[in-house]
């Protein structure tokens, strides 16, 4: 794996905390997903997504990160 999943999750948490003052989890997740699309190598996004969509990752992620993963998944499915 390129960047370790621990690090990816930590980076995502950090982005999520800083990127918005919006309390709404969905909207925060959307911004996080957009940021990842703009700045993350697709391999990092893919690793994050795989982790988020399987156990134990799915249960471990914070709501905003889970929401981001859903957005990324929806984007992938759309393309």
């Amino acid at each position: 794996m390129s960047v370790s999943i621990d690090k990816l999750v930590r980076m995502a948490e950090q982005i999520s905390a800083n990127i918005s003052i919006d309390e709404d989890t969905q909207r925060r997740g959307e911004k996080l997903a957009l940021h990842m699309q703009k700045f993350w190598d697709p391999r990092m996004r893919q690793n994050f997504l795989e982790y988020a969509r399987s156990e134990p990752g799915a249960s471990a992620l914070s709501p905003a990160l889970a929401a981001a993963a859903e957005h990324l998944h929806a984007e992938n499915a759309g393309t």
Partner: protein
Amino acid sequence: MPSDSTVDSTVKQWKPYRRADDFGTPEHISEVSVALEIDGQTVTVPEGTSVMRAAIEAGVNVPKLCASDSLEPFGSCRLCVVEIEGRKGFPASCTTEVAEGMRVSTQTPAVAKLRRNVMELYISDHPLDCLTCPTNGDCELQDMAGAVGLRDVRYGYDGANHLAAEKDKSNDYFTFDPSKCIVCSRCVRACDEVQGTHALTIDGRGFASMVAASDDVPFFDSECVSCGACVQACPTATLTENSLIELGQPEHYAITTCAYCGVGCSFRAEMKGEQVVRMVPNKDGHANHGHSCVKGRFAFGYATHPDRISAPMIRDSIHEPWRKVDWDEAVTFAAQKIRNVQQQYGPLSVGGITSSRCTNEETYLVQKLVRAAFGNNNVDTCARVCHSPTGYGLKTTLGESAGTQTFDSVLEADVVMVIGANPTDAHPVFASQMKRRLRAGAELIVADPRAIGLVRSPHIEAKHHLQLRPGTNVALVNAMAHVVVTEGLEDQAFIEARCDIEAYETWREFIAQPEHSPEQSESVTGVPAAEVRAAARLYAEAGNAAIYYGLGVTEHSQGSTMVMGIANLAMATGNLGKLGGGVNPLRGQNNVQGACDMGSFPHELPGYRHISDPAVRGEFESRWGVSLLPEPGYRIPNMLDAAVSGEFKALYVQGEDVAQSDPDTQHVTAALEALECLIVQDIFLNETAKYAHVLLPGSTFLEKNGTFTNAERRISPVRKVMQPVAGLEDWEVTCALSNALGYPMEYAHPREIMAEIAALTPTFRGVSYELLDRRGSVQWPCNTEHPEGTEIMHEETFPIGKGHFAPTPFVATDERTTRKYPLLLTTGRILSQYNVGAQTRRTSNINWHDEDRLEIHPEDAELRGIADGQWVGITSRVGETVMRAVVTDGVLPGVVYTTFHHPESGANVVTTENSDWATNCPEYKVTAVQVVPVSQPSDWQQRHASFSDMQEEALASAERVETTAS
């Protein structure tokens, strides 16, 4: 390979040596013109101009010694006296202002006699060793003696004199020979007015008057910062560059641009053949106006240092000695390795790092090579570890990743706020300009955990020093914005006309919350609330308020947030789009701005356009004849992580030293060791090169053509004055590597690369070498709308239309002090050394800073039993290093500070992987550490020393093979 056209166009840039023109007194700008008559010639000049300047501009050369157009008139040498109709006596033309209808005679028998008498007195106490004098042929005193027709000295030479005065050779770069001094005070005034250090004075009175440094101590021991302004100002051989003493007068010169910091000073490289006699700051330089610092003027000797890598070298393993090969073999070997890696591990397993020390053209080519020849977007630049948050933050708020002003704009500022920057050390020439403005009355706010030099210096004192705790910038800027918003200090007209109102209102509601008040932030920042309120009021109500910031803003886990916080503050107070205001990132290295502009970031093509934009990508695809991947690639820290995990296998690094400059050294070196192919292109065997398989000799700024872009977006020419040590300029090396990879790059000269950049980049559309030759420099955007470039950005609109207020939540870093690591380490740099020190350590600048030391507050030192000068171990959760302590109250209790100029100091062994949330810019400025007295180097230092010895030996044995073979 070098082509004839390269050589031809270089030659045209060389001009025969002659002293720069000097109009005697500074230029005056006035809308009112005054007409006068000088020697029967009618002359019209702006009001306020001196008679001397009016005469010299009209081609009438008035003799002078104490006058120079870089200094205010002084009127002490009495050589420039003239006669003015209707006025008594012989006024000095330098201190006399022109008046309407004035009739001036510069040459009359009475004036001639007076001047000869004055000269006679000077020469009666001056050595007559002209033929063996270092400034023979370029001495103003000698010229003036000739001009006034001095034929004999009636007083003789036997009276009391200074001829036996001893030389001061304490400074390696210049000699002070007081026997040749005429006490014109130009050196003293240059130190005061131009540099602003006030290190020199005239000691004694009358005959005993002597130039003295500080309290009459040797120059090296004085407050002198060795900028050389005094040397440049001296009209005799009293203060002379040692290089000139050694080599004699230059015979030609070329205008070029300094390769040190982001000020980007313009220089005359004054040459004898291919040897630099001296570097003299260009008076017509738009960034520096004839001034320089110790690095730019004096520290060029590294270019001819014996450590230069002089031939390409290859090896299969880093445990083998190097083999010297020719260029073809080296690039073929490198290309094969790259292709093999890609075949085995996939096309995305390789990448490149561009350099902020190389030219725009070279940087552009490296990113082109990665995107087009490697076929991926794994390209990044050292700006990742310094100003990447500036890119993100300013692009988000103002729409362009660049500083908004010219340096000259500071002269119109009423308040200057310096945040997390140390201009007198890191951007000294701009600091001198800023200090000039501060001495003239502008107010100063400094936000910094340390008492940097600017806080209190001769004739300057910060009104507010907001001495915040490391890592709390955002809380501080939010508190300032809170004051602006809640005390009604906003510029409503600007906000309504220029900013996105919805975003503004969201931000305003956020920032007005009581939690952002100075009172509530005080416990976080440590800055008294009243001080923050007063500073915010001063900034908001000043008229023109300018913010200058540096890596103390960006190198934090909230670096991007802080940049946005700064932009918000400037927008809220209407301090954008006008002279004297603005948001100004001070860039660390000479071409940080340029490297970013040139598409060095993995997600952006040149001109900051996202790689996912099909229209932009299409332009590059059709010009480059390849298809490009639409997704961002790896950033440097991602590359290193992926190398450690075995997925990223080859890296091409141009002019960058990640093994010393990047955080968490042991992680970096583990990544480098894991690579199957590391190609390093550099001028020295730097720390990174010790892990390389291919070593491609780099060329210094003196050995190549190109352009640098400084912190004010100013594109300036770099001109070749000597042949590259190994025959190729850096851009030629990249072309050779690309050609070996099967992707053709054919350029005869960097001007052709710039033409390609201009064709593909809207903000560079109008940039060409012809324009640079004509104008000297140009600030981008330079295109149809701005054919002569852009001094002040965002005057009418922002590139994104309306300015965007971005909310700036303060999210504290995870890096916190604990019982185990109770101190916060922050890092920075000093005046004499530059970044990793590879250049400056190989010059006499080493005399000022021969090792990195740890600054620690007396309380913390006492608690640990640490004495000044004692060896201390600095331990963080990632590593340990050892250096000597400096006990000083310049740092706050609880904070320790060091520099990172020497590899063996291992400052970055201690810094962690923490980084800015948006850009992964490392958090160099905050590391929790413990400091204890120790008696031996750390384990890392011992391992580093033995590895370095092994690598030096690997290099030396390549030299020996060469010698045996030939």
